C-alpha cells in the first residue's frame, strides 16, 4: 500500500502540470491545480498509512 501511495503522488503532480498547460482560463486552471494537490495529499495519506508499523515492531 505504501508504494501505491507513492505512485499516486506523481500522478497528482502531472495533473497540476496538465492544468497549467491545458487551461488558460484562470478559474478552471485553479480548480484543476487544487485537484492535483488533493490527489497528492490522498497519495501521501495512503503512503503514511502503509508505513504504520504493527505495535512492537521497530523496523519496517
Amino acid at each position, binding site marked *: 500500500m505504501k508504494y501505491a501511495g507513492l505512485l499516486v503522488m506523481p500522478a497528482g503532480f502531472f495533473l*497540476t502540470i496538465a492544468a497549467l498547460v*491545458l487551461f488558460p482560463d*484562470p478559474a478552471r486552471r485553479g480548480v484543476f*491545480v487544487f485537484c492535483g*494537490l488533493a490527489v497528492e495529499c490522498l497519495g*501521501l495519506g495512503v503512503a503514511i498509512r502503509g*508505513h*504504520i*508499523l504493527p505495535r512492537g515492531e521497530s523496523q519496517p
Partner: protein
Amino acid sequence: MNPIIPAAPPPAMSESLFAFVFLLLLVSPLAIAGLALTNTGLGRSRSAAQAMLGNLAIVAVAVVVFAVFGAAIAGDASSSGHAFHLAGKAWNWAGSGRLLLGSAAAGPDGSFSATQLGVLFEFLAVALAALIPWGSGADRLRLAAGCATAAVLAGIVFPFVAHWTWGGGWLAGLGATFGLGSGFLDQGGAASVHAIGGLSALTVVWIAGPRKGKFPKEGFSTAMPGHNAVYVLAGCLVSLVGWLAWNAAGAILWLHAPLSALPVTALNTVLSAAIALVATSAVTRFRFGKPDASMCANGWLAGLVASSACAAVVTPGQSLFIGLVAGVATPLLVELLELAVSIDDPSGAITVHAVAGIWGLLAAGLFAPKAGQLLAQIVGIATLLGLVLPTVYLLFALLNRVVPFRVDPDGERIGMDLHELGGGAYPEFVIHRDESYR
C-alpha cells in the same frame, strides 16, 4: 532539450551592497550551528558525540558533493539552462553550469557579481538541507548512512529544486510563462532547504524505522526525551541570528529587495518565531499542564522556517498570523505523527521543516498582492509533494540497500557513541543503557 535564452541578468551590484550581503552570508551559518545544537540536544546522551560529528560530516560531504556535481545542475539566473518545450512554453529544468564549479565562483572580469553571492548562498543552503534528516534519524542512523543521504541530497535533489526556484528554472518562471504572479517565491529556502530537508526526514524515518522500544506492543508510545534541554534552547537562540542574516541575504539576492525593505524582513522573522513560541507554549501548557521545553524549541524553529518563505513579502501583522498558525500546529502535529501514525522523529523535523516550510510557502501566496501568486505557490508545493518526495524515497530506498541506514541492534543498545566512535560524549557521566527491550 535545448539551451534557452538566458534569463534576465540580476541587477548590477554596488561594491558596498556586495560587501553587505557577503557579511550577511558569513553570519548565516549560525542557523546551521543552531540547528546542529538543537538536534544533538534532542537525541540521547549515549549518541551525542556521534550526532555532533555527524552534523559536521554531513555539512562537509554536502558542500563537497555540491561543489563537484550539484552546482553545475543548479546553475544561476544569469546563465542559460537546459529546457524542453511543451505546449509552446520553455520548461527550464536544469542549469548548464560546469563541473567543479567552473567559473561560477569567480566574478566575471573581477566585477562584483550577485552570481558569486548566489553560489555562496546555495552552498550554505545545501548544508542546512542535508542536515535536517540527520536529526530525525537520531539514535539509530549510521554515520555512513547520514553522509550518503547528504551526498544524494546535495548531488541530485537540492540542485534541481534550487535551479527551479533560484536559478531561473521553470518554477521561478511561472509568472512569465503562465502569468502566475511573480513566479514561485522562496526567498529564504522554505522549499529548497526546509521542505526538501523535512520530506527527506520523513523518508529516513520510514526507511530506518523507529527506535527500539519506542512503540511497545501495548499502551502508548514510550517517551524518549532529549538529553540536554540547554543545547536545544541555546540552539534556538543561535539559529535566530543565522536566520535574520539568511532571510535578509535571500531577500536581496532572489527578490532584489532594496535595503530599505530589510528592517521589515528582519522584524517579520523575529515576530514569526516569537508568536510561534508563545503559541506552542500555550498549547503545551493547556495539553500537559506545563510548557514543554523541547516542543517550545520546535515551535520557535517552525516560526523561523515559516518566515523563510515570506518574511520579505508580508506585513508584520501577517507575519504574526503565519507564526501563530505554525506555533499552534507544531505541537499538535508532532503528537499526531507519533501517536496516530507511529512516526518516531526525535527532532520533530518533519513538522518543523516540511510542514512549517510548506505553510510559509502557501502563506506567501495567500498574502501576495499579485493575482495568480497563490497558484504559483501551490504549483511549487505540488512539485515538492508529488515529485520530490517520491524521488527522494526511491533514491533513499536504493541507497539503503548499498549503505544500510539502521545500526545493528547491539549498536542501538549500547549507544551510537560507543558503537561507532568507541567513546562517549560524556565519559565522566553514567550513561544509561537501554533496558526497555530485553
